[in-house]
């Protein structure tokens, strides 16, 4: 049963990602992303990672996608804009990507993850609860990383404002 569910989720995630990339209509692309996020969140649930599942819905499906849709509607795009490609030769790119894929698959086939991380094992995590352990580790061992992520978001906002507001003003 679990395997069937995983198979369905994996297939759905892959297909919706492909549809999102290949769809010529931007709104459809964004909606395919929504499908992708929902399936991912179910995948997290099957792994008993309820916190990640909730975050996936609230942050990605809720906030990020709505922002995407706002942008799409604001610039009023019906069809994708066609720009000249950065790199011309399609077959060459295909071969490069394919060899990358083969390499990754060959390298990762038979991948066995670590049984325990420090004092943590899957059983221990289930006993305490995934959310609590995530919080403890994030705010103790990885507090520096957490703070840097905060600065990173600040820079992202700042960059957007600079590019859109400040430099426009200079032109006018």
């Amino acid at each position, binding site marked *: 049963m679990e395997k069937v569910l995983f198979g369905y989720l994996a297939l759905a995630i892959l297909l919706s990602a492909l549809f999102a990339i290949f769809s010529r209509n931007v709104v459809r692309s964004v909606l395919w992303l929504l499908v992708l996020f929902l399936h991912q969140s179910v995948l997290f649930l099957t792994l008993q990672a309820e916190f990640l599942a909730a975050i996936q819905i609230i942050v990605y499906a809720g906030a990020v996608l709505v922002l995407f849709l706002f942008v799409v509607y604001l610039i009023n795009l019906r069809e994708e804009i066609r720009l000249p490609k*950065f*790199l011309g030769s399609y077959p060459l790119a295909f071969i490069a990507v394919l060899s990358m894929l083969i*390499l*990754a698959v*060959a*390298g*990762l*086939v*038979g*991948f*066995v*993850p*670590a049984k*325990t*991380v*420090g*004092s943590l094992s899957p059983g221990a995590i289930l006993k305490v609860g995934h959310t609590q352990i995530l919080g*403890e580790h994030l705010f*103790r*061992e*990885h*507090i*520096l*990383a957490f703070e*840097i*992520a905060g*600065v*990173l978001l*600040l*820079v*992202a906002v*700042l*960059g957007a*404002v*600079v*590019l859109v507001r*400040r*430099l*426009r003003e*200079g*032109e006018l």
Partner: protein
Amino acid sequence: MPFSLLNLKALMPEIFLVIVASVMVLLDRAVREKAFFFWMALVGTVVAWLLARESLDLHFGASYLSDHYGFFFKTIFLLVLFLTILISPGYAKREGFHFGEYYGLLFFAVCGMMLMASGTDLLVIYLGLELMSLSIYVLVAMAAGDPRSIEGSLKYFLLGSLASAFLVMGLAVLYGKTGKIVLSELAGWLTSDKAVLTGILFFIVAFGFKVAMVPFHMWAPDAYEGAPTPVTAFMSVAAKAAGFAALGRIFLLAFYPAYAYWVKLLIPFAVLTMFVGNILAVVQTNIKRMLAYSSVAHAGYILLGIVSGTKEGLSASMLYLLIYAFMNIGAFATVVLMQREGRVGESIFDYQGLAKLYPVPAFLMLLFMFSLTGIPPTAGFIGKFYLFRSVVHAGYPIIAILAVLASVIAAYPYLRIVMLMYMREPEREIKLAPSPYIWLALGLSALGVITIGIYPGSLLTSVLASVF
């Protein structure tokens, strides 16, 4: 899990940079005279260096260690930042981005670089890299009047995000395999497992993008050409140094047990980078593109120090990065001096006969070009000498010979500019855009190039002592 007292003192320079950057951004609206930010940034850079020296040998948990290795790189970043600030104001005013946010973003970028150089767990190094990259994407797009600037930024952003994805993938593989994320702990767990090697390959690809290694260098010429020239100077040296700081620590500390495996992957990249960079530099007529390909080639040379896998090799790479900071910023400062409205001063033919009209800038450019070629008694020669020697000592004489061959090709693009400046009559009208600060930056760079070229001894011993 017990946790030691968090030592915020170790992070003083980074915290200081973030505070100064935020204050500059906030004050921008209130301050009419934008030169204020110029001075604030200069003073802030010096104070940050003093704080970095103050925080030596402190650590923050297991994720950050302010050792001498990190301090050496912080010195390079802050030196580059100082010189970049000096060459910025005239150019930034002309292009319309002389405001607090510009200096603020430079500070954020340097903060990210410092975290990369001193971070001792993969998560901090990754986030430092993102902080640096994000700031630089915006900085590249600053010259809003020029479509090349936006194009360069977009290419850099797309390919940079792809590189980050590779890094995260590699990180996930290693963490999944070993359950370790701290570099020194990771070292004990590495096996010659297939999955681990794949993870290491992902790391090579990701950092290859960041330091502009062939075949991941596609973004470099466009981003370097499109970016405002002071930003090009900044990213060509500081971002590369940060990439190598993290590369050195990850590969020679965490991945060292697998040296015999990854060195085989790295050698072809290094050789290819040297040759492709130099050969493509030959055909360029835009000086910023030429310097971009030259920077690709230099990434190849610096990679040799990592390839040799010894203390001597790593210290040679570090010394070369310091020398590269002086000579490359010097060359870009001359380009800034030559640039006026629009594209004027970007073609190498704009340099024709420069020596007749302005002997001093021409001589300085000659000095930097000689150093980039590696002609004694400039610092460039010393740097290449130690790098190539370390490769020979590590048992790869053939690679050293290839490197020398590649630098012979490199002589052509550099010396062509010298030839144009000294042996041709001026055809186009040449006008400089001088400012006392650019002269100061040029003077400091020239001083660095000559001093290290003549007295490398004491510097080399101190670099060797600061390798972890």
